[in-house]
Structures are given as C-alpha cells and as structure tokens.
C-alpha cells in the first residue's frame, strides 16, 4: 500500500507517522500532485499538530539530529525522496540513533546528500544575497535558489540586520521572508503582483561594483575557480559583474 499526502511538510510527517503505525504494509509514499498510478493508494489527512509530536518522538527514539535531517532534505525539493525518508526513519528507529553516518545504505546516502546540497546552497546565499534599498527604510533581496532555503535564512538576517525592515523574495518558489523591527520574521507566499523586478538607484551599488573590479589581480585571473565557487546561474541577482574584468591574455 502507498500513502498519499498533500506535499506539505506536515503532510509528509503525518504520512510517515501513519506508515510507522501500519508497519510493513506501507511500501512507500506519494504526493497528491504525483502522476496518477495504478498502485493501491490511500490518502492521509494532514494533522496540523504533527510537527511537535513527530519532532519529539524522532529526537527521542531515533537521534536528536533526525528531525532536522528530514526537514532539510524536504526543503531540498529533490524528487522521489519521500519514500527514502520513510525508510531513513524506519532505519533510525530500529537502530535507536540517527542513521546519517551509515552512508553505505542507499536511502541514507540520498537523504544526506539532499540535506548537504540544501545546506550548501543556504550557506552560499548567506553571502551572495544582495539587499537593495527600495525606499527610505526598506531593503529588498531577490533570489532564485534550487531548494527552498528561505525558511533557513530568516534567523540569520533578522538577527544581523535587526533594525532594518527587509523582504527576501524567492522568485523561483514564490515565497518571501518579511521582517520588520520589533516583530518576528514571517514566511509568506509571494503573490504575482509582488514579483516585479525592483527599480533601484542605490548609490552604494556603483561603489560596490567599482570595488569589486579593482580588487581582482589581473595577473591572477582565474575564471574557472571563480565559477566553481560562484556558478554563472547565480550572477543574475548580484550587484557586481563577475567575469567582466580585463583579460590580460586577450590583449
């Protein structure tokens, strides 16, 4: 039997909880928007209170890291990961610890790789997100990450830039972090009319672009290394212009 959930994290956790109760009868998990299948499918109703309970349960019966591993893997948006996550949980419960180090196991490997990818991407965006001044006291940053990193960025920026109202827009997945001093940051859906690119005449941008240019040493020009760290697909929302400097070999 396969369990079908609504695709939210609560839905996934509910499905895993039901699968644990049902035991081996449940072979895997599906999402409501997966293509139709001839497999025997049973829908589960998402329980809104599931996160606290499952988080607690998994931390105690598998390992304290387990809930976070699952959340990160979920946010990676890697396809067909729900069933490996279920097997990850089953393995963890049978071992009485987080199975993460057991990379010999293909499910563990995939879940851990998804987590690492997402955290790597998040770490990159801690650095390359660019805020533009969009009003006397509003800063806006746009990004198009592969995974859903916004839920993990909120704390960092709300702590660091606590006195500055800001919005971080994920134009790819249609969500945004909103922050205003004195309140907690919130994650919200990004409505279509709020997706327009920003017109900005921020004087700091020209200074930063210039600084970026003069910092490179022409004798050491190394586009390959530059792109290894900062792939071209990430250039779009930067202020600076990578790769635009003079190439001594071309002259």
């Amino acid at each position, binding site marked *: 039997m396969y369990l079908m959930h609504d695709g939210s994290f609560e839905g996934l956790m509910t499905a895993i909880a039901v699968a644990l109760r049902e035991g081996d009868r449940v072979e895997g998990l599906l999402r409501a928007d997966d293509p139709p299948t001839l497999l025997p499918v049973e829908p589960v109703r998402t329980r809104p209170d599931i996160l606290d309970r499952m988080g607690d349960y998994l931390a105690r019966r598998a390992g304290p890291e387990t809930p976070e591993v699952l959340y990160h893997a979920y946010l990676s948006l890697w396809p067909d990961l729900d069933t490996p996550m279920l097997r990850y949980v089953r393995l963890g419960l049978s071992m009485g610890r987080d199975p993460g180090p057991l990379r010999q196991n293909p499910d563990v490997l995939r879940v851990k790789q998804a987590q690492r990818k997402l955290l790597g991407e998040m770490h990159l965006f801690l650095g390359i997100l*660019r805020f533009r001044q969009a009003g006397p006291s509003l800063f806006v940053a746009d990004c198009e990450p592969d995974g859903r990193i916004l839920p993990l960025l909120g704390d960092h920026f709300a702590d660091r830039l606590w006195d500055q109202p800001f919005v971080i827009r994920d134009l790819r997945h249609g969500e945004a972090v909103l922050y205003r001093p004195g309140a907690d940051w*919130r994650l919200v859906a990004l409505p279509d009319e709020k997706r327009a690119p920003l017109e900005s005449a*921020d004087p700091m941008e020209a200074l930063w672009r210039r600084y*970026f240019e003069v910092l490179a040493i022409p004798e*050491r020009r190394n586009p390959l290394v530059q792109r290894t760290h900062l792939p071209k697909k990430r250039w779009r929302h930067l202020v600076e212009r990578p790769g635009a400097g003079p190439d001594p070999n071309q002259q």
Partner: protein
Amino acid sequence: MDLMTKLSILGEAARYDASCASSGTERRSGGPAGGGIGSTAAAGICHSWTDDGRCISLLKVLLTNHCEYDCAYCMNRRSNDTPRAAFTPEELAMLTIGFYRRNYIEGLFLSSGVVRTPDHTMDLMVRTLRLLRETHGFQGYIHVKVIPGASSESVEALGRLADRVSVNVELPSQGSLRVLAPDKPVEGISRPIRYIRDRREETRDALRVLRSVPRFAPAGQSTQMIVGASPDRDLQVLRLAQGLYRQYRLKRVYYSAYIPVVSHPNLPALSTAPPLLREHRLYQADFLMRFYSFDARELVDPRQPDLPVDVDPKCDWALRHLDEFPVAVERADRETLLRVPGIGTISVRRILEARRLGPIRPEDLAKMGVVVRRARFFLTCGGRLLADRLPDPEAIRRTLADVRGRDLLSPWQMRLEDLPIPEPAWPSAWPGGGGRGEALAVADVPVQGVFRCT
C-alpha cells in the same frame, strides 16, 4: 577627491593582501537591547568571488596609501610614483556600514601605509574602529593589520576593538627583510606578534576566574608571507610557519605569490610570472601541518628544501613512505587514514562513523567522499588492495600528478573536502521549535502593505 576615486585607489592598493577569512568569532547582534547592528558567523561567509577566483568576505582597503617606508616589493613605497589617497574615518565607517546593510561584506579589513610614524598611523586606525564600534555600534567582523614598529599601547587599543589582528611577516628570513624592507626592523614585527599572543592568553586565563574580561582579538592573529620575492626556500617558509603556529598560536599564515610591481635590483624582473603553483603547494603543506598532524620536517628537509611541483605534498610523503602502506580502511586509526592520498578530514570522519555501524565495501568509499582514483594504491578494503595491481613508485607518481589542480583550485582556499570546518552549526530549523520565525507552510498570510513597512 570623491569617494569613488578613493575607493578605487585604496581598494586596489590593498588587493595584494592574501587574507580573506572572516571566521573565528561568533556573535549575535544583541538586537534592540544591545543597540548597533550586525553579527559575526563562526564559519566564515564568502560574499563574492573576484575574477581571480578569490573570495571577498571583508571590505579590504587601506586607510591611506601614503607611506613613509620604502619596501622594495610594495606599490605604496615612498619612492614609487603612484596616485595617493586617504579615507577619513567617517567615510570609511559610512562605506562599511552601507556595504554591510546590503550584505556585500562580513565586515572590514583595515590596513594602511605608514603616515608620519607607526603609532600615528595606528591612532588613525583606532579612531576609525572606535567610530564604527562605539558610535555606530557595529558588531560585524573587523580585522586590522598592525603597522610594523607600533608600540604595545597602540596594539592594545586595536586588539580591544578588532576581532582579528595581524602582523605581516612579509619575508621568511631576516636577511631578506633587511635587504628588501630596510625600514622595517625585525623586532618591530616580532614584538607585536608576541604581545598579541600574551594578551590573548591572559584574557583566556582571566576568563576562567572572572565573568567579564575585555575582549582582545577573539578571532586570534594571522600573518602573511610573500614568496618568490626573495631567494628563501620552502624549508624556511614552512619552518617559520610552524613556529608561528606552535609558539605564537597564530590562526592562519597566508602565503602570497610575489607579483612584480616595481623594478628593483634585488627583486625578480617585472616580467617574472607570479609563482602561483609554489604558493598553492605551500597552502597544501600548511593544511597538512594544521589539520593532518604533519611536521614541517616530514615535508621538506635540507636535502629536499622545496616542495615538489608535480604532486601535492601529501602524495609526495606517501610515495617516500610506501613501506607504511597499504593501510586497512577497517582498522587504521584517524591519523593514519588522514595520511592516505585521496582522503580528507571529512571523509575520515565519515569512515570512522560508518565503520562503527556496519561493514564498508569498496564501492562505499566514494560515498564517503574518498577519491578512490588516488587512494587505491594505499588502501585495502575487505583485505584487498583497491588497485588491481601495484605499479612501481614512478608510475604511481605519474598517475597522481595533479596538473589540473592549479587551475581548478583557488590557491587561497582549499577544496571543500579539505576544509577543516566541522559541519557548521546551522540555525535550528525544525519548524515550530527553536527558530524565531513562525516558519514552514507558506501560509496565506495577507501580504498587502508589508512591502511598505515604514
């Protein structure tokens, strides 16, 4: 002179300094209660990569490029005809905070040419840092370079305001220093390095008994050496680096391939290419000393005073010690595994954890991050060598030669696999618990109005 011109001149003048890291302290902003802005992250954050592949983490500029000294290898030397500029403390604070608020940087890296005297220059730097820290409450990362010859008092003042302090050794031997940097007394470099070490140890000891002690350079000190400007060998460079790590507790030593910027009878000709591969090998050796428990003497000795060019220093060591291999992935201890080519600190950790939980098959090694192509001559798994046969040492050497290494890796930053950062501590992210945001489900919270949150 407008700000744009100043930034161009003083950014360009600072670009030869190698250090870029912003790691080593962790500080939350303190929020509204603490006043001020900013925080620092324990695992350094890179904000961009320049066209030469180096990471930008800090706004790295000189306060001024006017200089009383005449170091032969330096663009800013007194006798060089180059445009000069100077920031006011206010301009620099404004730039730092403006860049910081837009997430261009983690903080400031401030250095300077020598204005009048070392101490006068240090005073100007202290003024700038005070303005940032005290007037603007800036909590971001600050790294300052001590001016050679500065007094202990001014080092003390800087150390209290900065996260990291560095004193550049510049040249790996006293002889070279005397020839190429005649104004810089050797003592003027070693004295502040000692002072900073002693003050950090004092602070650490005091913290054991007292609750609050004024901070002193909590992210430690680092230094930089120029390679290729003087005839010094890698042996001198690495021995000195090891001494700096062990006796002076430095956090980092940076190596900078000399790029000829001025012609001088005692320096390589202007047309000389910077020794980038040598610099790269020095960084690899440096990593081996810091994280793989190698001793400098194992890597270079008087008979072989320079690191090899064709293979990395760890391979070179392994090839000279083939009698100690192969080792068994099931039993070898951490130190031994770390010496196997193709295995880094992360893959060792994974192997150690995984073998406690279950057997490791040869095909699992790649999943742990082992570069099997390199490790196969040195490692057994299930009682069998990974390679089909063991060629003679010269053939292994040819197989392991990393001609591509120098193009692929930023010489100033190692591959991720080589980085010693444990897995960084990510913000607690389990939805609903721990984090401050009411994270998760993209709920239908009304969005109108929030885009103008004045």
